[in-house]
């Protein structure tokens, strides 16, 4: 491997599926469960996180030769905190209603381990362009999970999507889905489905191998 491999599409795709931050690496669970009671909140959270992730990966990758190794974590945390402050103030100034809905969870992006994880594991040892692609991919993976989770929870818990009534007035909303237990449950069932799919695939490859051997 050369010292600076060029940015490839794989840098983007890896974060979306194979190394998905939430369902594969179990990072960033706190926002993924806390704000996904409606699609609008999930989207707003994803956008704020994307902004912070892009900003921190960009700065960390460009400053990687300047930051001394001993204080790198502290420096990364400071960089992330700066971008979170910007995102927090921007949200408060432009869409105050969304900011109010998300409440303290915007500030809590700062302790989203996913962002620090990308800074430490990727941006601190790769080129700026690759780090940006990596940030985009990770953010996309995070967004997909948040939107799916919030869509399921809003549809079942309130009978609507993005505030638009879908299931009609005769639908009795499962209120529990928009409450905290629904968050754990939805993600849990999602994990079961992913595990089931993986097991099926494993069986299929094993069967194919047995056919070859025979």
């Amino acid at each position, binding site marked *: 491997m050369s010292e600076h491999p060029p940015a490839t599409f794989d840098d983007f795709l890896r974060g979306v599926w194979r190394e998905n931050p939430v369902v594969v690496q179990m990072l960033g669970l706190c926002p993924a469960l806390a704000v996904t009671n409606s699609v609008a909140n999930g989207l707003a959270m994803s956008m704020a996180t994307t902004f912070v992730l892009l900003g921190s990966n960009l700065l960390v990758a460009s400053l990687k030769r300047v930051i001394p190794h001993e204080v790198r974590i502290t420096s990364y945390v400071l960089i992330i905190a700066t971008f979170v402050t910007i995102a927090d103030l921007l949200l408060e100034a432009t869409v105050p209603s969304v900011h109010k809905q998300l409440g303290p969870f915007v500030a*809590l992006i700062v302790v989203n381990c996913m962002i620090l994880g990308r800074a430490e594991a990727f941006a601190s040892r790769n080129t700026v362009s690759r780090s940006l692609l990596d940030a985009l991919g990770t953010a996309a993976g995070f967004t997909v999970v948040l939107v799916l989770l919030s869509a399921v929870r809003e549809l079942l818990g309130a009978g609507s999507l993005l505030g638009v009534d879908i299931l009609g007035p005769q639908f009795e909303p499962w209120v*529990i889905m928009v409450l905290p237990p629904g*968050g754990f449950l939805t993600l*849990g069932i999602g994990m079961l489905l992913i595990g089931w799919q993986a097991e099926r695939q494993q069986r299929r490859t094993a069967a194919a191998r047995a056919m070859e051997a025979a």
Partner: protein
Amino acid sequence: MSDLTWILISALLVNNFTLTLFLGLCPFFGVTGKVETAVRLGVANIAVMMITAVAVWFLNAFVLVEAPYLRIISFIVVIASLVQITEMAIKKISPALFRALGIYLPLITTNCAIFGLAIFQTNRGYGLLQGLAFALGAGLGLTLALALMASIRERLDLAEVPSLAKGFGISLIIASCLSLAFMGFAGLGAG
């Protein structure tokens, strides 16, 4: 006085940090293999939370009045350094306790429960005593959640779990049930 008790009970049961606010999920799923370690981590968390509450109160009262936009940055820096100082102090005063806590102490820095505590305390405008009661309640609540989860998982090791639910899937479903149980406290104090 009743005000303080109510803040404590609210943080401990009604708005349990882990099970209803989703804070501190990393240790909740990560280090709940054994009851003993879970409780130990919880106790370390209580200590750091109490110290954080005092520090945050000080920052809010004397420093951040002038520059509220520095809140997030100053909180995270103060929390990180406080944990570092606590670690050094414990190492000096009681090496035995330091060894017992091991890796958990530094891990607390990146724990969203501590940062969440600082943010909630600020948003609700708690004073020093209220902040301490809140920190104690939140810490006890976290310890309770960790201990519950750990004791269930200790039993789970002996149970037959379908292979596809092993690991994270079953933990999430259990968390859902625990959270559901804690929803029962929701009406407490409403009247």
